[in-house]
């Protein structure tokens, strides 16, 4: 195949052209010095040098300072269009330029300078592309910023009707997108935005901006999460502590624990995670079968890394079990099980499973519920005297002899925080 124009005429076998290496234009006033004195004609400057002992130049020194300030201001005018360089006091004009006027002006009122800069920086793209889920996610990533995912009714259609392939739904847990059915609206009229917000975000601003991006007649259900990782960027372990098991990697849209030689784990390390007490943890994971009884791959919760105490919920493919174990000083002991033989199902290697753990207080006890594929399989009330850890972080783990991948990991705080943005 050769290089051709639109009429299939060939470029000659060798074509050449030349260019001068790019030279960046001067960026600051210092790169482009302007002196009042230089504007005098050469003859005057020569006389001043030879006979005037540079009197004229010294005479202009004072004016030069004023001149310099003026030139600096002139050169800084371009900063008025820069979301990062624009002085705080002029942001109000920049926000008007990018569309926050009229009825939209209220949204941008009363914002601090940093938030306003974020709003301004996303504005042009938002006005152009608003309506798509991608744009909503991009806008939230800049505005808040937060990790965000969006579900809509059409995403789940294939698993909620008769076209579903199998009961495990490729690890997609219907709970994560259980549809709001508020008021007179049908499920397909809802977009579910799941956004990490431990309470620091400007939720009013989020609601207002989301409201602006309504494609047609949709309603939004905003669900505020404690944690979300979809592993979208290779190598991004910024939300994870892998110091104990540094072999964990993020690639191809998942966190991978691929060393069967030993136990491996990765722990969530975002702010506040060590204090998590009541939550719903969801992980989409797949694993291999271990070589021995009482192994497994799954999730850790209520886990204290410094003591090695906490709990694990895991799939044991060798014994075809789902189990919860107490981990004390890094030693795991299973104590409650669900045997998949009882439902005629055999856990499979490298099949995606949706593993969900509910942890909630009931008096001094802790209720632990474990779901697989959206079905409740274990419900256990941990007695007071046996509680090995009542708060802590979460994570993923596998036993020696196994490997595992996790493509989605989400923690939803209890009580669940949601808001709706409805058609008005």
């Amino acid at each position, binding site marked *: *195949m*050769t*290089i*051709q*124009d*639109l*009429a*299939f*005429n*060939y*470029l*000659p*076998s*060798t*074509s*050449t*052209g*030349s*260019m*001068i*290496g*790019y*030279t*960046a234009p001067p960026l600051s006033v210092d790169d482009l010095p302007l002196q009042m004195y230089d504007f005098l004609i050469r003859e005057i400057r020569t006389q001043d040098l030879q006979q005037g002992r540079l009197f004229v130049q010294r005479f202009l020194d004072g004016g030069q300072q004023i001149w310099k300030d003026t030139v600096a201001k002139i050169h800084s005018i371009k900063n008025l269009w820069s979301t990062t360089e624009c002085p705080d006091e002029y942001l109000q004009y920049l926000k008007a330029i990018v569309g926050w006027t009229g009825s939209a002006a209220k949204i941008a009122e009363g914002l601090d300078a940093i938030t306003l800069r974020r709003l301004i920086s996303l504005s042009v793209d938002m006005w152009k592309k608003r309506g798509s889920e991608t744009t909503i996610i991009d806008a939230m990533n800049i505005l808040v910023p937060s990790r965000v995912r969006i579900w809509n009714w059409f995403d789940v259609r294939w698993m909620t009707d008769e076209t579903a392939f199998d009961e495990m739904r490729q690890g997609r847990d219907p709970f994560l997108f259980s549809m709001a059915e508020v008021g007179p609206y049908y499920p397909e009229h809802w977009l579910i935005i799941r956004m990490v917000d431990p309470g620091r975000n400007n939720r009013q601003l989020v609601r207002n901006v989301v409201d602006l991006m309504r494609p047609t007649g949709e309603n939004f259900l905003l669900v505020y999460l404690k944690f979300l990782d979809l592993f979208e960027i290779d190598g991004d372990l910024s939300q994870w502590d892998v110091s104990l098991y540094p072999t964990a990697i993020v690639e191809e849209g998942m966190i991978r624990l691929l060393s069967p030689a030993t136990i491996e784990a990765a722990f969530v390390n975002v702010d506040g995670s060590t204090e998590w007490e009541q939550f719903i943890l969801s992980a989409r994971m797949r694993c291999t079968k271990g070589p021995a009884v009482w192994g497994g791959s799954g999730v850790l919760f209520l886990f204290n890394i410094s003591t090695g105490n906490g709990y694990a919920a895991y799939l044991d493919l060798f014994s075809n079990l789902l189990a919860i174990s107490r981990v004390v000083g890094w030693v795991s002991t299973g104590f409650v099980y669900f045997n998949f033989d009882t439902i005629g199902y055999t856990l499979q290697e490298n099949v995606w499973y949706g593993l969900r753990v509910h942890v909630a207080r009931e008096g001094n006890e802790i209720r632990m519920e474990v779901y697989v594929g959206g079905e409740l399989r274990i419900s256990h009330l941990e007695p007071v005297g046996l509680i090995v850890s009542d708060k802590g972080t979460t994570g993923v783990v596998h036993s020696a002899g196994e490997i595992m991948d996790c493509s989605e990991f989400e923690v939803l705080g209890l009580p669940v925080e949601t808001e709706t943005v409805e058609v008005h």
Partner: protein
Amino acid sequence: MTTLESAIARGNNQVRAFFSSPMMQADLIDLANWTLIAISPGAAPLYLASISLPVDTYPIYADLTVSEMTNGLPYRLEVSTTMRDRWGNTIDPMFNTTDFAGIGSTPFVESVVGLSKNRVAVRFSKFMRDELSIRKIENYSFDNGLGVLAVMSVEGNEVVLATSDQTPGLLYSLTVANGA
């Protein structure tokens, strides 16, 4: 009966068709009476844009303005047998087609411009086809150690290349190889 005698390409976008007899103007300027066919599979399809006639009540030829032809490849011109000469005779169905060789101009590198320290715009003389060949970085090479890292975009007559960092002010020569 009258016949279509010959056709000849007179430039990138013009074909002149000759008839054996002076023709009716009304028939000549009807676009529906003309059909252009690219005979060779490698030839660009040809579209008729307009027809102009010499200052003559009954012209013996017509100039067709067409889309650009592929240089050297054969095309066929076919006219409707309902066209009439000045005496009302129609075109002989045995002689209503004629072949001619297309004329097309060869594209060339018109300019090379540094857009930033590691972006270069290569502008061709004509709009280019956005195909694999024009997006292969192996087809672009600079002297003075400037590497081509990627073809960022192909749009119209412009190809933007990502390069290693250029030395400001240094003269670079680009070679675009074709045939790979």
